[in-house]
């Protein structure tokens, strides 16, 4: 069984009167089981030179039955070193938040079956704040991958 582990540490010596030292670790399982997630898109490293939204998992049929009720995990990191540069992350057109230089996200992505004819339901999109070039990394670890048929 594939075993993939995700761990986070949140630390601060001076945010609060008491030190913050929070850690959490979990093994990535298929939905509702203790069977490890065994599929991944692999890590993408991209240099984006436009501010338009891009679909970061374009080769997957998001919202397909293959994803319905399944467990998927998404990692996105803004590798820019300019603290003013950010990426706006959206899901199905709704803004989640902004990743500033060095920021990352780790979020679940469990979609229901696509109810929209344009198949945009659940798309995770990224829009750089500048067109002068920004580096990003992203990947997904998941189950239930479905790819479009070749045309």
């Amino acid at each position, binding site marked *: 069984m594939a075993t993939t582990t995700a761990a*986070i540490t949140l630390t601060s010596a001076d945010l609060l009167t008491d030190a913050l030292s929070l850690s959490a670790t979990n093994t990535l399982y298929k939905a509702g089981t203790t069977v490890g997630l065994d599929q991944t898109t692999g890590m993408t490293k991209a240099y984006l030179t436009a501010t338009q939204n891009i679909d970061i998992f374009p080769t997957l049929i998001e919202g397909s039955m293959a994803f319905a009720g399944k467990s998927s995990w998404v990692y996105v990191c803004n590798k820019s070193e300019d603290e003013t540069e950010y990426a706006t992350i959206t899901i199905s057109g709704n803004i989640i*938040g902004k990743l500033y230089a060095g920021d990352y996200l*780790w979020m679940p992505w469990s979609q229901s079956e696509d109810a929209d004819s344009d198949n945009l339901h659940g798309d995770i999109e990224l829009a750089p704040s500048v067109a002068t070039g920004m580096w990003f990394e992203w990947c997904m670890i998941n189950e239930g991958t479905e790819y479009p048929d070749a045309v």
Partner: protein
Amino acid sequence: MAITAGLTLTSGADDLTSDALSLSVSTALTKAGGSTAIASTSGLARKTTVSTDQYTLYRADDYATVTNANKVYLKNTETASPALYFTVTIDDEPMGRLYGGDWAFFPWLATNGVPATFTAAPTLSWGDATDQIVFDGVTVVLGGSGSAAMVDAMVATKYPNWTCTEHDSVTALYTAKDSNILYQIEEGTTADQFVVTTAGSGVITTARVTAAVASGNDIKITPSTTGSHTLESMLFYE
């Protein structure tokens, strides 16, 4: 001041893929567009749910700034059954499910909604000192005579979900504290309306001034079962 958030993703060789996965990334949580550390936090909190109702975890109204680099940490603390999950939604869009032991860390752009405002005018006969209204769970007693005196009493009263100012001498202006109050306020008999009790013919006439627009990107959770489940959360905000 500094807050550090570190993430590691690991998997052995020939496990998830042929090569081992060993990703490690760390970031300092700073305010938008600068190097100043985020200085505010909701604190580490736990929410125990006992139904499959949707719960609002963080209201965008409470954390909105023009630009913000807020970060949210969530963890499903359940360990007994891996099948129990919380569905996390943002802007009423399902983001994903947190099964037992799962955690998430993501940015959150909190944006303000538009709170409702309306005028309320005591009209016709308000002549008895015991005339009263009940609104937002609060009883306002006239204590004098006339519409202007009633408006003074309404303005002087503190309400849990509304603020009240004088629109003019015979009209009060109510403003919602929360943009998620979307219903129209009128005189009536239910708890979300003006309930009027007068010795004479006094009524409250309401008129909408501003229609509410909900702060759409509240963060909400929906448990998968009615059992007692606990979600841990922490918000870092500007």
